[in-house]
């Protein structure tokens, strides 16, 4: 679980990138704005993962899996 809430670009993507070095099949990333939501999604997809987004009232839980 990566908690990237409140962090400005490109921090959320860097954190996701670092976490994903372990090459597991499932990650969760928490963000609280649209820009990092899009950026993390884009990065995960570029790495061959699928992304599901759960809207938690202004905060978003990204479920990244492959």
């Amino acid at each position, binding site marked *: 679980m990566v908690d990237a*809430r*409140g*962090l*400005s*670009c*490109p*921090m959320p*993507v*860097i954190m996701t*990138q670092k976490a994903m070095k372990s090459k597991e099949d499932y990650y969760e990333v928490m963000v609280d*704005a*649209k*820009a990092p939501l*899009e*950026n993390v*999604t*884009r*990065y995960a*997809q*570029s790495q061959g993962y699928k992304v599901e987004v759960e809207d938690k009232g*202004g905060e978003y839980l990204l479920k990244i899996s492959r």
Partner: protein
Amino acid sequence: MEKKNDKLFIIIAGLIIGIIAAGLAFLGNPKNMGFCIACFLRDTAGGLGLHKAPPVQYIRPEIIGIVIGAFVAAFAKKEFGSKGGSAPMTRFVLGFFAMVGCLMFLGCPFRMILRLAGGDLNAVLGLVGFVIGIFCGIFFLKNGYSLKRTYSLTAGEGYWMPILEVVIFVLLIARPAFIAFSEEGPGSMHAAVIVSLIAGLVVGVLAQRTRLCMVGGMRDLVLFKETRLLWGFIAILVAALVTNLVLGGFKLGFTEQPIAHTDGLWNCLGMLLVGFACVLLGGCPLRQLVMSGEGNADSAVTVLGLMVGAAFCHNFGLASSGEGPTPAGKIAVIIGIVVVCCIGVVNTYVKAGAAEEAA
């Protein structure tokens, strides 16, 4: 959020912005300055009397348009929200010195693109410095640099910047005696208020929707091999270049370029400072302006830093002119690079106190 549509959208937005930017220069704005966030904040600071440099005093409606456009777009998409609290003074200082760099080069990253599109080869050296500066920032990002989190703030906090822009728009229209208007020089050259305002609104909306950022392109390419933002940068360049060629605004060379000097080293170092500071800020001056319209108080403070920086530059003779950089300006740029380096080191390597670690 289809990947292909995503890229296509920012390319189309970039093309529109490029045409508008080049077009504004033909409708009255200074040459190669359809848009320049640094110059326009500087002119606005002058219009409000924060500095007394007669040629660069004019409340620029483009700035007002960008903030309001971004505000409306963010509001409509339910993305507006009062946020802040991530190292505001550090952001102020980074904004201040980013402006020192911009006024050494005579343009923000946005105008750097427009200068390239106008055939001003001095901007190539600016671009070289800009890329080096971005790499300096990336070095710290890769090693853990962070200004920590923003938090939700009181509901009203995010409205200050849009309100401020409405107030200065009223001042622009009412023209009270204490608001300065340049009678000659760049500040006297401008498109009609309504044209500038609409151009700003369109750019504000497009930049908000696409998250367009001039430093983000290069940064994301290096960090993540992500090219989306870079396509926006390239699209602006191409569209402005073609528009200039069609309208006859293209002149290739180093000398006698509009509002530019030929000191290559200092063009390079000025933009190095800008690229470096903007990576540590998380976005270029345009992006800061847009985020200030989205309710981000940290970006609003950064914009104030840019404006105060501009005022100091002209009060202390730090800003370059067509004749070249000033000795004081050179010293200020060196100090800026050192300060930005220190900010990088402190926020990368100095560990937070025990209380914060536990929190």
